[in-house]
Structures are given as structure tokens and as C-alpha cells.
């Protein structure tokens, strides 16, 4: 982008697993915000669910002393993303402006190589052209493209909200304020487990949280440099 903000932005998300109770509000909010297709019970059970965000569930311990752990899993917006180099048509690529891993739907021809190469299994594929059952068809978000069959999609960090906030800030001639951008999942989370913000802002809430002792990045050893930071007091379990 030519008119890049003087203040460079690097959007990160912090997810506090100690606060997550696995309610799934984020999953629903994400689907509503991003026009995520509704694939039906049967297809979903077969692993064709389109959720950009899913709650990964782990059981810890042996019965009857079982504890459950939840881990919301979404595209980690890797700085060094494995999905990017394998795409033959540049449908998945890096946005220099927002430092996000973006998916260009129009370019995608559906090789699904990116999905195989994603260690977070974060990508979903449009197996069919999906219909939204009534009355959900009135609910489509006009800010987000509706995808057709045969292409890949994934979490965008609600880029439409980021862009809206950036434009507003630019019009008012100020940087984007901390907390001004909230992805749908963060907005819906009842326990405020999900926090979103700009890493470059030294006073931001994400910065403060991410530097806590409980912070870790998932599958960090792969060198993908994810931009989602999890917080957990039992981080060895993940």
C-alpha cells in the first residue's frame, strides 16, 4: 500500500486459555461476521465444517479425575507462513501493510495444498455452493465476500474491521486507538479471553498480556512465527 501508516501496525491476538470456558460464542460470532457457510449436521460430522475458528478440546488425566482443556484454534497469521510458498497462483499471500496472511478468493483455484501444509489445520474448503437456511440468508455481512465452491478460506483477523478502523483513524488524522479494532470472536467472548491489538504500540493491552510468564505460541518450534499468543498456567500441556 502506497499510503502506509507512519506508525507501522502488527496485529496480534492474545487468547487466555485460563479464562476460556469453551462456550463457543466466538465460533458463532465468527460465522455470523464472516459469512461462514452453514454446511449442515451430516457434513459437519464428516469433517466438512467451515468454521474459521474452532474450539480444540483436550482431556487431561484419567477418569474419574478428568479435566478438560479448551484451546480456540484459528489461523495463526504466521509471519513465516507454510501455506504461502506452496500456492501456485498467489491466492494465499502476505499483506505487507497489515502483516497479515491474506487469502485472495478470486485467485484461488482450489489445489488445497495450503491446507495440507498448515500445521494448525486452520483452513477450510468450500466443498459445495452452500445455501444459507432461512432466516440466516438475511444475515449476510455486506462487508465480507461470499465465497463460492472450490476455493479455500480461513480466518482473516476480521480484516474488514481493521480496514474500517484504519480508515476512520486516517480521516481523523490519528493512529488507531488500542481496543478500537475488535474481531468478532473477541467481541463475543463472555470471559474476555480474547484480546486483539497492535503489537507495535508499547502501551497496548496485548503487549502487556503477551509479555506475561504464561504466554506461549503454539507449535513455536516449527518457526512459523505465529501472531496468536496463548496464555496458560499449564502451558506444558499444549
Amino acid at each position: 500500500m502506497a499510503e502506509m501508516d507512519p506508525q507501522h501496525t502488527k496485529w496480534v491476538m492474545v487468547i487466555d486459555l485460563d479464562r476460556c470456558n469453551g462456550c463457543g460464542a466466538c465460533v458463532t460470532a465468527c460465522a455470523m461476521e464472516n459469512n461462514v457457510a452453514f454446511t449442515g449436521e451430516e457434513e459437519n460430522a464428516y469433517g466438512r465444517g467451515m468454521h474459521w475458528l474452532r474450539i480444540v478440546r483436550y482431556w487431561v488425566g484419567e477418569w474419574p479425575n478428568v479435566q478438560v482443556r479448551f484451546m480456540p484454534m484459528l489461523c495463526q497469521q504466521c509471519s513465516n507462513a507454510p501455506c504461502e510458498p506452496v500456492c501456485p497462483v498467489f491466492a494465499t499471500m502476505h499483506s505487507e501493510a497489515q502483516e497479515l496472511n491474506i487469502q485472495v478468493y478470486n485467485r484461488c483455484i482450489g489445489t488445497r495444498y495450503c491446507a495440507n501444509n498448515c500445521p494448525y489445520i486452520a483452513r477450510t474448503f468450500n466443498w459445495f455452493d452452500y445455501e444459507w437456511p432461512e432466516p440466516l440468508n438475511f444475515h449476510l455481512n455486506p462487508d465480507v465476500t461470499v465465497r463460492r465452491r472450490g476455493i479455500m478460506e480461513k480466518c482473516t483477523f476480521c480484516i474488514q474491521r481493521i480496514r474500517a478502523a484504519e480508515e476512520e483513524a486516517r480521516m481523523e488524522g490519528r493512529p488507531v486507538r488500542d481496543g478500537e479494532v475488535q474481531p468478532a470472536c473477541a467481541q463475543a467472548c463472555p470471559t474476555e479471553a480474547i484480546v486483539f491489538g497492535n503489537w507495535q504500540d508499547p502501551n497496548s493491552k496485548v503487549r502487556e498480556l503477551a509479555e506475561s510468564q504464561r504466554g506461549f505460541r503454539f507449535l513455536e518450534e516449527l518457526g512459523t512465527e505465529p501472531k496468536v499468543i496463548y496464555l496458560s498456567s499449564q502451558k506444558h500441556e499444549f
Partner: protein
Amino acid sequence: MQETTLPAELHERVEELREEHLLLDPRPREEMNRMVLEAMEDVNREYIIVMTILGLVTAVTLFGAWGYLMSKGLGLAGIRRPIYWGLFIVSFVFWIGISHAGTFVSAILRVFKAEFRRPFTRAAELMTTFALAGAGLYPLIHLGRTWRFYWMIPYPNQRWLWPNFRSPLVWDFLAINTYLLGSTMYLFLPLIPDLAMARDKSKGWRKVLYTILSFGWRGTEEEWRHLQKAIQIFAWAIIPVMFSVHTIVSWDFAVAMKLGWHSTIFGPYFIVGAILSGISAVGFILYMIRISVKNMRYFIRPEHFDALGKLLLIISMGWAYFFFNEFLLEWYGGEHTVQEILRYYTTGDMAPVWWTMVICNILIPWLVLWNKNWRRKPWVMALMGIIVNIGMYAERYVIVVGALSRNRIPFDWGWYKPSLVEISIALGTFTLFFFLYGLASRLIPLIPVWEVEEGHHAHGLKRIGKGVVKTVAELE
């Protein structure tokens, strides 16, 4: 050698050698021409029935199912998260593998002057071309939006976008195209003198066809020199291309950040696997030609099955070596996810497929092929062709589907069941292959007559003292 001057016991020995070796059993060129042309023009009722069935089955199971798939979406295939590649990619790797041996048998044996190749180089090269035609469909079939496949081609376009040259799929696309063009030309060059022969001896539409295809070949010394030179160049040049193609296919997997795929040995392992499935397929094809095409019993003899059998045994040992290396080192590494993948292969849901692979690729070939009597039986080699190819299909299934079923997030492990549409398309490529092969068997001379004749000139029998010895003359 004048047979009349031979004593009776030597005469018997000569007869024996002639029956055994095609190259010691010369027939006049005219007769061989006639035999090959007769085989080519032998369009009988059975042939038409078989070809009609093959054609119809291909139209329905391959193209019909593919059209249905495109109109509804890829969801008709059984693939799902996290197994995004299924039977299509398995079949793709399988057919690329088959396509290898045609060129391998022909080019490698040609540059090393292995004489037993002479009658079946063409049959093997045809296998390469048609297997590639089948394989080449899969990268299109498996796309979510097949109608946009040309976006992978580097050409100046209104999108102002080159393909991503870092993507192994683009390497694939370029490698397969190179190989298809190269191997087709390599098939065509030695065909020219035979087409000219057919042109001189046929009438009607065939005459027109062969006149066009034989490029005005007259058989002057100059033309022969150029042809020999061109064949030499192509035979040498196609070998590295062939190696590169299957290595690049293996890189589709090996460069991925996927445990079970990310293996440095995949390049040579895939090449050996490809040659294994291809050589055994040549055995099957030769058997089919021998039993179903006229006059072929003269050209294709037990000695050829014997030679292929030996080659197959060695390649099977080579495959076992790479397989063992790959498995052992992965296991020794002790990575949790890899351990789980290997457990899934050997004792999990994938076990029937994995053990099929081991039995068909190692156990059965090793038990059968050491025995000369079995190697010499055409039907045994045809059966080996089927068995080894079942084993190699299983190998690709294990690698593609098995590895994808297990990943670093146990919550997202999955299983996969091929759907009817997928199975139908996979079977459709087999019928397509046999249909194209059947068509070619009546359109072009299946036996390179001039190469066989060349062999006849080079090989002979000589009486020395009280015995008969085989002699070989260097031609070039």
C-alpha cells in the same frame, strides 16, 4: 550359417537357440513387415466390441463423473479436513509412476545397448505416453475450480500475475509438460521408419495418415544417420528429465511441513517406486499384446519376460532398501507425531493397506522372481504386473492419505473413505489407458521392425570346432 552343412546334434542346438532368442531367429524383412501390418490391420469383431465397451465405460466413469464433480463441487469426493488430498492425488502419483518405466526401459536399455529391449521399446514408450495422458488429468480433476487451471501457466495475462515459482505445484506443471513433450518426441522418432514402411504397404485412409506422419521418409543413408543421432540425443536427454519428474512429484510431499511427508529420501524413493510399478506394468502389457495381437508370439518371447523379471527383482530390492531406510529413520527419530503416524500405518486403520504394500512389493516378488521357470511364464509376469501395481497403489495411498490422517493436533485427526465418484474416476483412467492403448495398437506398428532387423544383423551363430556360439557385432 549354412544349416545344411551342420551335423544333426548341432542342428538341434541351433534350432533350440533360435526358438529361444528372437535375435537369432531372423526372418526376411518382407515377412516381418507383413506380420506387423497384419497385426495392425486386424480389426475384428472382438476388438470392436472390447473397444466400444472400454470407450463407453471411460466416457461414463471418467468424463461423466468428472463433469458431475465439477458441476456440484469437490464435496462429492470423500476428502475432508484434514485429509485434503485423496484418491485423485494417489492416482496421479500412480500414473506418473507407470509412465516412468516406458522411458526407463526404452532409454536406459538403449543407451546401455541391452539387446533384449529391441522388440518392446515401442510398447513401453506407448505406455509412457498414455499413462501420462491419464496422470495429466488428475491435477485438473482435483482442482476446486478446474475451469481456472490455466492460471498455473506462466503467460502474460490481464491479472498481471505470474504463477508462484516457489510452489511445487508449478514445478510439477512444468516438469510434467516437459516430460510429456519429450517422451512423445522420443516415441515418435524411432517410429518414423516404421510409419514409412506402413505408408508403402497400405492403401486408403491409412496411406494418407502414414504419408503425413512419416514426413517423407525415404530411408537414405543421410536420413538414417540423422535419425540415429536424434534418437541417441533424446535417449540420453530423456533420462535426466524422467528422474526430475518423479523427484518433483515427490517434492510435492517432501517440501511440505507435514510429518510423514517431510523426508529427504523421498526423491530417490519415489523414482525407484515408479520404476518398480512401471517395469511390472510393462510385463503385463507385453502379456496382453502377446495374447491379444496377431503374430506377436514371434516377437515377444519368454526370454523377454525373463529379462524383465530379473530387472523387476532388482528394482524390488532397491525399493525395499529405500522403504526400509525411510521407515527406520523416521521411527528412530522418535518424534511423537511421527511415532503415531507409523503406528497408524502398521497397526492402525491403515494397516491392511500398509501390509498389502509390503506383501505385494517385497514378499511376493522375492518369492516368485528368483525362479527362472516362473519368470519365463508370460502369465506369471502378467500377474506380477498386477500384484506389484496393487502394492504400489497401496504405497501411494499410505503416503498421501495415511500421513494426512495424523497431524500435530490430535483433536483434528481424521479418517477418509473414497466416495463413489472418486473410485469411478480412478477406475475410468484405467479404462482410458487401455482404450488409448488399444486404439494405438491398430494405428501404429507396435513392433519397431527396423530395430528388430538391426538386431538380426548384429546377432548371429558361428560354428567353432564342434560347437555353436552366439556372436554379436557392434553396429554403430
